[in-house]
């Protein structure tokens, strides 16, 4: 049971942090370099999950993907079942919930890149895409890594959103944090302790490994040809 919950949690975290990598990098780039006046609006929107209780976010996502909303109805017509209380629904909620944790470190490190380097790149004939690939991405890599690690860790540890959207279905939506909650509810403190300890050890080992790796990352590793 623990193993099932653990693999589900990891699967969710991997899928969510990979999706956030794909969404987060262009969004962070836009936030770092755009001169649009209404940029603050997007910044506030992206940061919202940091301050909002997970129940609020979870509630609205549940409504949005439920059979009463156009999105929910459209998905149901397409796939034959509702998004609510499924793994896919959980992914949507988690992506939104972890968005700021991925985007903020990325945007910060992109914005910290000396603009002169970007000017120099353009003056050397590089297109925007080439400048992004050869200059922005490698120099912003520490921030991209941080964003990836943080969104992964944040997804592993989330509880409220999962409970609101996913419920508690073994193998589909019962993540490890839900399992611990279950075990405590059932007054099975010994089992809860084992699960919690496992999660604690796993998270610590993962973060230690990633931060250790990041210290060892020299520019060599991230050099793009």
């Amino acid at each position, binding site marked *: 049971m623990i193993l099932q919950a653990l693999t589900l949690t990891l699967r969710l975290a991997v899928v969510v942090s990979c999706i956030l990598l794909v969404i987060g990098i262009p969004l962070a780039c836009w936030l770092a370099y755009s001169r649009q006046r209404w940029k603050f609006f997007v910044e506030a929107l992206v940061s919202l999950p940091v301050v909002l209780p997970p129940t609020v976010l979870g509630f609205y996502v549940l409504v949005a993907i439920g059979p009463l909303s156009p999105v929910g109805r459209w998905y149901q017509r397409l796939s034959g079942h509702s998004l609510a209380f499924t793994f896919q629904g959980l992914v949507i909620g988690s992506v939104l919930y972890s968005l700021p944790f991925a985007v903020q470190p990325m945007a910060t490190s992109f914005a910290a890149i000396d603009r002169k380097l970007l000017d120099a790149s353009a*003056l050397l*004939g590089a297109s925007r895409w080439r400048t992004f690939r050869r200059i922005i991405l490698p120099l912003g890599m520490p921030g991209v890594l941080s964003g990836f690690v943080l969104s992964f860790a944040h997804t592993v540890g989330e509880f409220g959103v999962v409970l609101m959207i996913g419920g508690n279905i073994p193998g589909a939506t019962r993540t490890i944090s839900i399992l611990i909650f279950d075990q405590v509810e059932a007054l099975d403190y010994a089992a809860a302790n084992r699960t919690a300890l496992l999660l604690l050890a796993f998270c610590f080992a993962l973060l230690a490994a990633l931060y250790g790796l990041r210290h060892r990352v020299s520019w060599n590793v991230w050099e793009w040809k």
Partner: protein
Amino acid sequence: MSAPPCPPTELTVRVRKSLSHNAGFSFALDAAFSVNAGFTILFGASGSGKTTLLDCVSGLQTPDTGRIAVGANALFDSASAVNVAPNRRSVGYLMQSPALFPHMTVRQNVQYGLAELDTREREQRCEQILRQFRISAVASRRPGEISGGERQRAALARALVRRPRVLLLDEPLTALDSAVRSQILLDLRAWNSGRPIPILYVTHQREEVFALGENVIALEAGHIVAQGSPHDVLQRPQSETVAQLAGFENIFDCEFVAAHPEQGTMSCRLAASKLLLEAPLSRIDRARPLRVGIRAGDILLASPAPHGLSAQNVFPGTVLSLEERDVLVIAKVECGVELEVHLTPAARNSLHLQAGTKVWLVIKAYSCHLLQDGRKRTVALAQFHV
């Protein structure tokens, strides 16, 4: 097809650009010039618009109106809505900081701008320019691991390896010591003799103007106030920027009092003083503010009162302070205005100068250079005031 109207390497620039800041400060660049292959010095104080001008040529900033072209090729033309993107202008631009990519080696930096060439040609060109700028030995190092001079050499090589049509240099060598600087300039000259393109070199250092200048453009508050060879520009330093270029330590507002055509002089009163100065008779525009510039080295100090001199201007004064710098003594002397006077330690010792000493100041009429701020290249030569 008709012949091109100008030499293929000629850079012609005509730009207007207003920059307004929130703090009520506004600035307008309004300059037109054309230059041929070789060095052209852009000289002016900070804030005179030099960097804005270079940014407009490189495409990093867009002028409000005007035209920028190399030969017959327009890079920017507001009339026909041409505005070539910076990455397609083929303009080399070196800024004060070398802006090398920190995560790449010197060689990778140099090759960065050659993406469209095949590998063999890219490497060939890269190695050639590395040799030419004497950085082959550090080619595998990163910018953080080489000296400041080598960094500027690498940045120069990176810009030149693309064979740009124009090279813009924005005080690229100010941070380097003079030996390193002159060696880099020699190498740049050697490169330029093989590939003659216009080089706009921005500086506010006087020495560099004389070391480099074939052609000088003096900028003041966004306008060109003088253009020509350094010798021509300095011959009649009528604007304040040019005066600084010529090294006037003393510049004062003054007002025209009377002309003495029979003596070949005119009298001017220095602002906020009763001091009447005899200056050579020259053409001035009475409607515009007039200033006088005097080199600190052109002023003599005497004690006791001199007589039997050809010099027209002899005033009493008091030494305020003396400061010794290498073999130069800089004296500040109060005589109604505060004048800076340069003399040798020997002169100081023989006159027993110290703060408070009463002295006589002696200035030849021909050492008093009348300056008039001019927005046009040639200062309005209205008429003699007789």
